[in-house]
């Protein structure tokens, strides 16, 4: 099963080779998350409207290996934007992917851009 975790690794904006066009902006719940399919990857995308920011990370919970993070709640931990896994409330920084309330391995994060009313996610391959 670990192989499915290995499919995800953080992509920095400078390493983006493909900007993948996902869906129209209005398909993304405000201050909530949805899941995007790219090849065989599942990416959680959050429209953090309160901060006027978009974030993307793997949908896979590193704890139980279920595809659920997009269904988690977002918020902040002392100013760090985060998502809480709906299964056991483990929280992860949306900026660095770091597990904020435990010692799980960080999750992979991806850059997001908005162009012409569409949401794009950056991948390195």
């Amino acid at each position, binding site marked *: 099963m670990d192989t499915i975790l290995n499919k995800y690794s953080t992509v920095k904006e400078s390493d983006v080779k493909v900007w993948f066009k996902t869906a129209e902006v209005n398909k993304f719940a405000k201050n909530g998350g949805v899941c995007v399919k790219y090849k065989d990857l599942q990416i959680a995308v959050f429209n953090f409207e309160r901060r006027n920011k978009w974030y993307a990370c793997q949908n896979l919970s590193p704890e139980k290996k*279920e*595809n659920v993070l997009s269904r988690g*709640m977002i918020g902040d931990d002392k100013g760090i934007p985060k998502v809480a896994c709906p299964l056991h409330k483990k929280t992860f920084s949306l900026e660095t992917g770091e597990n904020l309330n435990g010692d799980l391995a960080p999750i992979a994060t991806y850059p997001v851009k908005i162009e012409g009313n569409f949401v794009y996610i950056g991948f390195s391959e």
Partner: protein
Amino acid sequence: MKSILVIGNGMVGYKFCEKFVAKKTSENFKITVFGEEPRPAYDRVHLSEFFENGDAKALEMAPRSWYEENNIELITNERVTDIHRASKTITTINEKTFSYDYLVLATGSSAFVPSIKGVEKEGVFVYRTIEDLEGMMAYADQLKKTNPEAKAAVLGGGLLGLEAAKAVMDMGLEPHVVEFASKLMPRQLDTRGSSVLKNKLESMGIHIHLSKATNKILGENAITGMEFGEYDKINVDMLVVSAGIRPRDELGKTCGLEMGTRGGIVVNKKMQTSDPEIFAIGEVALYNNMIYGLVAPGYEMADVAVDQILGTSETLMTEDIDMSTKLKLIGVDVASFGEPFMPVEKGYSIIFENKTKDLYKRINVSHDGKKLLGGILIGDASDYNMFHQIYLNGLPIPEDAEELILGARGEGGSSFGSAMDIPDAAQVCSCESVTKGAICSSITEGGCNSLADVISKTKVTTGCGGCKPMVVDLVNETLKSLGKEVKETICEHFAYTRQELFGIIKVKQLKTFDEAIDTCGKGDGCEICKPLVASIFASLYNDTANKEEVIQDSNDKFLANIQRNGTYSVVPRIPGGEITPDKLIVIGQVGKKYNLYTKITGGQRIDLFGAQLNDLPAIWKELIDAGFESGHAYGKSLRTVKSCVGSSWCRYGMDDSVGFAIELENRYKGLRSPHKFKGGVSACIRECAEARGKDFGIIAVEGGWNLYVGGNGGATPRHAQLLAEQIDNETVIKYLDRFFMYYIRTAAPLMRTSTWLDKLEGGIEQLKKIVIDDSLNIVKELETEMQSLVDAYQCEWKQAIENDDMVSRFQHFVNSEATDDNIVFVPMREQKQPAAWN
């Protein structure tokens, strides 16, 4: 550079490292630590918490990286097997050799297992390490699968034994404590104290067997029972041995250090063994001919050894070691301090006992009446920290010493002042040697602003945790004296309690989360405050979870319970458990069509499991078309009102229990509350609906209904308490409206009615005054609020499937019709279940 080898990475071995690197002169030393356990040192004192949260990391004294940062080499999973004093080297199980200038033995102790016939059987455990606890949990799970009534015994009724008994009880096994002596906690309690404690524990469901010498463990491969005498046996399926500890002194023995006659490595006041270059600290060290099974003396020993090795001071071990203890966790207060048993030549005792309240207090006072020498507190140990301080610091006591336990006559209340009255030099935390002065000045001068700040700065409460109540008082009082406010707040975003926030939202008529956080909070919210605010909105306006789905708990957001593998369950409401054959057929058809696992639940309805997120709207559409509604099984809200078949069919029935249950379930359905909420209605005292195990229970009697409130099943079952007798249907509804609404207004988040009622000052009598006699003059308001909530009800699933925008929420992918291909089911008894987690 000199080399120090520390053998044993337990609590005390770790503390040695921590104290060592904190000293300036420590740079000329290199520390290497060997631990036999697979993980870095963890907090054994709070081992039982691992059972609650399964979080081993949270128990760690420090992460592995701490050792690196401090230039300490930590080698875990490596037992040291020999010490060669002549060459000043040691060897390990993997045949590695290391040499030392100083050696510190911190090997602790192991659980003592008496040589009873059959103790090697499967299902017999000790309680010392995380691995022990994991083993117990796995075994208990296995047992419960085949036998939900499985029993577990604990051998030993001491401090640790009782903690273990609570742990097995929480694992869902029937707990039995078997003690050889004629009393519980023989080292800390007198006979009267023990009998009060025994009563109390038995009322909590823990079975106590005293004066029992176990001579055999019964069973083939696995334990099935314990035999005390020929005809004296009990059947148990698991055993935890907690019969004392034995120092792990084997290394000392083989290298010829001086040993105690009954084990333990002899040390002097400098913590040196008979070899001045070898030190022993913690539970392996025999000091004053004693092994002290507590952390505080161990930490002091670590401190002494550090100073001795660095040669920086003349620190020596205290002569008299304080053995005061307070039992944690078990759900009943027990404490003993100083000299619990009083020899007549030293002083006299004052004893207070109230059997109806399971209270026992004993204090021992010097003959001249000036000094508190020790005591025992059972049932209410709230004065423990204060007594302990008086005892430790020899503080003056009232002329009439009985006032200490009886309160000053006339005025009532406690006869000594607050924690602030103890001298600054008084040691409040013995584990970390922190004085009252240090705690208070960390706030007044050190810039600390909260309990958490004080803890991280001074380390108080991080050892045994026994000092916590007093530290909390000191911190609160000091903050108050500086004009700073202290309270239990919701989270970093809202500096209010739930009750306060409820009031603010109501008065200001705030309607969205952004309004709430912008008006009275800060930041962006989190998984704690968002659902809490959502629940308040629901309680105030009966908003369904669809209104602002992003602040709902994930289950509320998708109107379904997330299951182990990220699929969901579907639970239609079946009020009172009454259902027509036609509707049963619909449930069957839906289950078949979407390949769902179906099960009849304890709440008299049917759960369908294994639905994929994107199938939920279609499933619900079929159910709603057939006349079903949401069962709100996912919400903190009314679940079911269970009913017995009642007078329509049963020959004992005194009233129409089913009809009334349906009426009540329909009245309160959809209502959000601080926690889930269940009801039951039985039509006679045979109580087939088990109504008294619910948040509210109604039982038909001659002349009307008896109404009970505040019960629950679950981990700590509670019977509901009688609120009113022989009342008619209308009055039941009136009282329930008031009770329910008052609970919604005032309970803390995630607090069931039973805990809420426990915490309500004055308990059930007070509740009667509020609900029946209207002592707060609010019942009209409560009734109106409830009626408007009842009127505002809507089925949120109906709402969701009728709105396209809402339906799109259930799509797994925003950019594809595909479903989650990672979900794997395995077959089980003609149905299916999620594949196991790994």
